[in-house]
């Protein structure tokens, strides 16, 4: 900050790629549901099956989405990085997390109260539509990259039946 003014939560949301370009009225409304948070290395942003009551807009640091498996420890499903969103299970019932989210190093994020946001989206379908328009590409992108990884493109040819 160079002008000596504190950034409002609406400013912070508007600066995040997820909400960039939204009109100021909408970001003000969204800002009422948001607050800045910090996590230390190894802290959990959330754990599997907990209520999905807060999702995060990552501003600094990395987060690993994981599952624990008996005998194999933590398995990292994906890592997410600054500019990304952590958590999408807040959108649909039963509003519970499907994965653990663990801070890898120090993490700066904006936490968004999911119940608050859902209430505002229900009350203002136009805003809700805009929020969903922002989230759908995130979910679609995750689905597409997951599909690519399912193909196991780097597998040795012998494992996938190619005889070269």
């Amino acid at each position: 900050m160079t002008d000596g003014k504190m950034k409002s939560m609406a400013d912070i949301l508007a600066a995040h790629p997820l909400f960039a370009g939204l009109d100021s009225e909408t970001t003000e409304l969204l800002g009422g549901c948001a607050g800045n948070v910090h996590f230390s290395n190894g802290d959990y942003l959330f754990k599997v099956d907990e209520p999905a009551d807060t999702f995060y807009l990552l501003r600094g640091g990395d987060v690993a989405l994981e599952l624990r498996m008996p005998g194999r420890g933590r398995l990292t499903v994906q890592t997410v990085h600054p500019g990304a969103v952590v958590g999408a299970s807040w959108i649909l019932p039963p509003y519970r997390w499907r994965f653990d989210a663990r801070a890898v190093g120090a993490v700066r994020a904006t936490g968004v109260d999911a119940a608050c946001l859902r209430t505002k989206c229900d009350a203002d379908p136009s805003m809700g539509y805009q929020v969903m328009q922002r989230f759908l590409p995130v979910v679609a992108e995750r689905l597409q990259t997951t599909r690519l990884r399912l193909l196991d493109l780097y597998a040795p040819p012998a494992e996938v039946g190619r005889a070269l």
Partner: protein
Amino acid sequence: MTTAVVAERSVHSGEGGMLPRAFEVRARRPELADCVTLEMAAVDGRPLDFAPGQFTMLYVHGVGEIAISISGDPAADATLVQTVRAVGAVSKAVCNLQEGQRIGVRGPLGTAWPVERAFGKHLMIVAGGLGLAPTRPIIYWALANRDRLKSVAIVYGTRAPDQILYAPQLLGWSNTEGLRVGITVDRAAEDWSGRVGVVTDLVPAMLRDPAETVAMVCGPEIMMRFGAQALLDAGVPAEDIHLSLERNMKCGIGWCGHCQLGPHLICRDGPVFSYPAVRDLMTVWEL
């Protein structure tokens, strides 16, 4: 000498034709469980002058011949360096060669990465799995030409942490001024603290000025398609995206047609192509 001149001369000279030259294995270095790097020297002492991106046909006597990309330093042409994965009969025989044994070599063959297009620009290398091997000569070249490039980024994706090719070298390059290295893996256990995800996710994060970037992409073909698309989406001009394609090469010099891709013969017109030249062909099932 420009890369284009090297490529042209190698294809049309007699030594780059059908007659193999004898090389001797001077060093053998296991890379991964199924992957070996061989350092070879010509028995006649003449260096094999190649440009980044070119390949040779390696002939194991009594077994057969296989196309393998050159993965060494183009400035160190006294030694031919090639990284091979043991997959079929010939590649397994190549991987099993020991120091002192001989092998037939034809080449260098094929087109080169147009590295000089990156002068005054940012250079991004996007590699997947063993696709790092054909791009390693670009990295050596870039290290020798850093003052003529705005920046160099290596974006590497592979299956798992234990499948990272040239891991010690990647670590060294990540600590080299002017080079940025990003690695991501498809799957990892808890002892991995790096990125997990597809290589295409890492592309936009590592681009600096997309409109001023020249990108070289090598890996499984689907990965290259999505990688090229990620570069395009980020604003890298299509004509500044280059790919190295792979097909079943036999003669290596455009005679037999085994490696045909539409109007192209990969061994003669490639393996390095500009993305616009092959973009539409890469989604045709029959090719």
